[in-house]
């Protein structure tokens, strides 16, 4: 199990390869990456995304999610990487990887972690456009998504 909160970029392909390599316990590995989408921003196109977080609480909150997912779906392993700071369009913001004996558990655990990272890990996104900035508002459907767990 590993949780990394970092400003530096990460190599999604290399992380996935390293996570999946040499396993004998897991029959299923699921990986997901969140990428900065070219959404409209103040003044037209998105120039960058600035991600703020709460150092300390971020790591604690993610560790608690990982512990719950591991117990609930019997994960063999799990990796969460989430970036903060300034990110350009097309860069990976975060990734989740889960390994379980069977795929249903690996998929469910990854979706659970995604839903919780979105609404219960203390990160906040600011859109930087050509003519200003705007904090991204939380969406009611993201909050509602937690109900299914």
């Amino acid at each position: 199990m590993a949780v990394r909160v970092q400003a530096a970029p990460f190599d999604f392909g290399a992380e996935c390869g390293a996570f999946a390599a040499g396993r004998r316990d897991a029959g299923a590995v699921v990986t997901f990456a969140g990428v900065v989408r070219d959404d409209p921003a103040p003044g037209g196109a998105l120039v960058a995304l600035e991600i703020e977080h709460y150092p300390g609480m971020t790591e604690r909150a993610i560790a608690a999610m990982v512990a719950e997912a591991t117990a609930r779906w019997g994960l063999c392993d799990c990796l969460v990487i989430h970036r903060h700071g300034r990110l350009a369009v097309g860069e990976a913001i975060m990734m989740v990887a889960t390994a379980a004996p069977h795929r249903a558990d690996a998929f469910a655990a990854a979706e659970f972690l995604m839903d919780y990272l979105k609404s219960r890990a203390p990160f906040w996104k600011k859109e930087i456009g050509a003519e200003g900035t705007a904090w991204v508002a939380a969406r009611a459907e993201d909050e509602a998504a937690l109900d299914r767990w």
Partner: protein
Amino acid sequence: MTLEVLYFVWLRERVGTGRETVETGAATVADLVAELRARGEGHAAAFADTRAVRVALDQELAGFDAPLEGVREVAFFPPMTGG
């Protein structure tokens, strides 16, 4: 008691600082918010609508009715937008 009060995102922008040390006798988060509001225009603006504000006590999410006894760090922020 002495509390470290942290502000994130637009609460930090409105208050004008990300962290302040507060001497208070507030029993609950709601009591503390009432005291903070009286500190000035920036604080009042940050807490104008507490439905848009979330709180963490010692880095665990809590409600506005939560007691502050034994707490050292209080953080205020908007709903999270990770992932």
